[in-house]
């Protein structure tokens, strides 16, 4: 299908019309592809992701998801998986309930959601810590749970905002490889913001510098 994936058309981002953060964006990421965006701090990488996710309003231009224009679509209806630098796990919920959160929001029954969450916890290799609280996890483990949580509702696009920058290089490389595999196997379009060249090369099928 020609329209599948994520694309932008003359997308201008920023916080006021008078001060756009970058030249208009025109790119396309098809299912199974990862666009890695490299750039120094403050250049607008995270704002681009926030705009695609619907957190920050579009200044001008358009965002298309599988052919549909989503500029005005509320965040909770865009079906986007978002992973920040901090795992941002919900501290009052168990690991399983964190992962099941999106499924429950999509009206999946509690039992089915928990079964799926358990499968995903196994998939990220953390079945052995399923009874731990969020704050008892290491940085790498919390990052994996955040990934499982983002993937659980089968998002139409995955956005990674420097997801590994707080991790050591070994864990970073391992997780980057796993994410690249996931994006390919699940055929999800992904954008991966980073300032680490090595990480970008591991995950990217296309690259953009800001």
């Amino acid at each position, binding site marked *: 299908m020609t329209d599948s994936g994520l694309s932008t058309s003359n997308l201008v981002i920023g916080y006021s019309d008078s001060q756009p953060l970058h030249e208009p964006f025109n790119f396309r990421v098809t299912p199974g592809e990862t666009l890695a965006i490299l750039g120094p701090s403050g250049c607008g990488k995270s704002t681009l992701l926030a705009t695609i996710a619907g957190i920050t309003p579009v200044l001008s231009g358009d965002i298309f998801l599988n052919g549909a224009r989503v500029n005005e679509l509320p965040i909770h209806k865009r079906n986007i998986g978002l992973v920040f630098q901090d795992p941002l796990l919900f501290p*009052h919920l168990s690991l399983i309930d964190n992962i099941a959160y999106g499924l429950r*929001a999509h009206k999946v029954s509690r039992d089915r959601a928990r079964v799926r969450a358990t499968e995903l916890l196994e998939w990220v290799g953390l079945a052995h810590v399923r009874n731990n609280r969020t704050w008892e996890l290491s940085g790498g483990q919390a990052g994996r749970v955040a990934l499982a949580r983002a993937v*659980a509702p089968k998002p139409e696009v995955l956005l990674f905002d420097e997801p590994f920058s707080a991790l050591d290089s070994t864990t970073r490389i391992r997780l980057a490889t796993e994410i690249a595999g996931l994006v390919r196997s699940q055929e999800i379009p992904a954008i991966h913001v980073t300032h680490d060249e090595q990480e970008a090369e591991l995950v990217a099928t296309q690259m953009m510098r800001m």
Partner: protein
Amino acid sequence: MTRERGALGNHAPVFVRHAWIAPLVFFSIFLLYPLLVLIRTAISADTLTALVNSGPWSIALLSTGQSLASVGLSLIIGIPIAGVLARYQFKGRALVLALMTVPFVLPTVVVALAFKSILGELLAPGLILVILAHAYINVAVVVRIVGAQWSALDPRHINVAQTLGANPFRVFRTLTLPNLKASILSSACIVFVFSFTSLGVVVILGDGSSTRTLEQSILRQTSVLLDFPGALASALIQLVIVTGALILAAKMRGATITLTHTHRTKVRGMRRSAWVYSIVILSALIVLTPLAGLVIGSFTSTQGMNFSSWVGVINAQDRFAGLGSPRAAVALTISLALITALIASAIGGLAAIAVMGRRTFIAAIALIPLGLSAATIGLGTLLAFGRPPIDLRSSGFLIPIAHALVAIPLVVAVASPALRTADSRRFFVASSLGASPARAWWTAYGTLLRTVMIAAGGLAGAVSLGEFGAASFLARADSPTVPVQIAKLLARPGDQAYTTAAVLSTILVVMTLALMLFIDRFSAQGRITVS
């Protein structure tokens, strides 16, 4: 090997290591001794009879119902305001936050009179007026405690939940509310305590039956009925219930998120702007309407609007037999507030330093007055030092000492966390550069301590300005403090008494607000929280 105490261990200078002595001596003489005297005077077989009597228990039950209703209303009004102030950055936000604090710092008798001014003709004295006034006073507690936790919640959690498909209501129900639970319960416990121990409001706005509190009972039992065993029984029941609520509040407070960053966003979009600004306007109206009623009341007499009551107060006219002149009451109240500020900041400050050195038992003793009623403190002080062989009533120190006891828990609560924010490594840096322990300590903590003490002293002064329970025991009948005089004026018939009370209340409002602005200035400099 000696045990290490605090971040500085045994490196702390001598005066810091012994900072606990002065507060302990003060509390022993002015808190523990009066309590012992009170218990010795009152305890008898009659106390036990009073304890098993249904009287105080039925008042406690009645008062619990009233307090729970006050808590409910405070939460209903306070939570949306807390949300708006915590989540959004907009012009005038700081002003609205300051405005919301105003009712809490105002003397309770003033709030009561303000409510009487605007609702007195619509509602008869009774439960509804009392609950409304309690909610008015305590919304600030909810806004401050819940708001602090709300602004510490990372909005990216909400973004993540939304990207996972949760609509705004679901986000609030499954994410925001569970994370605010501890602060909501903590603020509810504190509002409960304030409503349960209320005196000024129930004296002025209550109907004497459905609105009675144990605090009011204690006052009546000791000053009218002279039933000391009964008063002790009421005080004991109150102590148990209030301590329970405070322990629960402290437990909940411990479960709240530590504020490291505040996350506020600009108000964007029509619907959101409408929501935010309607809450802001509504909160301003809620706070200002009773105060406006009060000020208008001070200018109103049977001849219409005029300045006669103000002129009467300013000219020191003694128009009410046996109550002293209003101007003298203002002068007395100011001087008592100053002495209270000095005593409370000195003792409270030393107690906070002692707590830094892990002498936490001092904090535990300093918090005792929170569980006692102000009336109990006043009564104990009167029994211990207001009659031979030790009669200090004519010295003028009894009221500021009782007020200091009421204010010290607040001083410690403000000063302790503020002092903990100072980086102890500065002490070691100064020491390594050759500074003596005392000089190094002052280098690390001195500036902050000075700021904190001034702000905490101001807070103690504000408490003293409006304090009613202890002063109603300790003030001499012919020279009452302003809050006592207001309550006595309201008990007298006639417009003149009412408008004079309104004038005095307006003066108290101005003095309290001036003091709070002063505190706010120092708090901002010292990065401390007065809430």
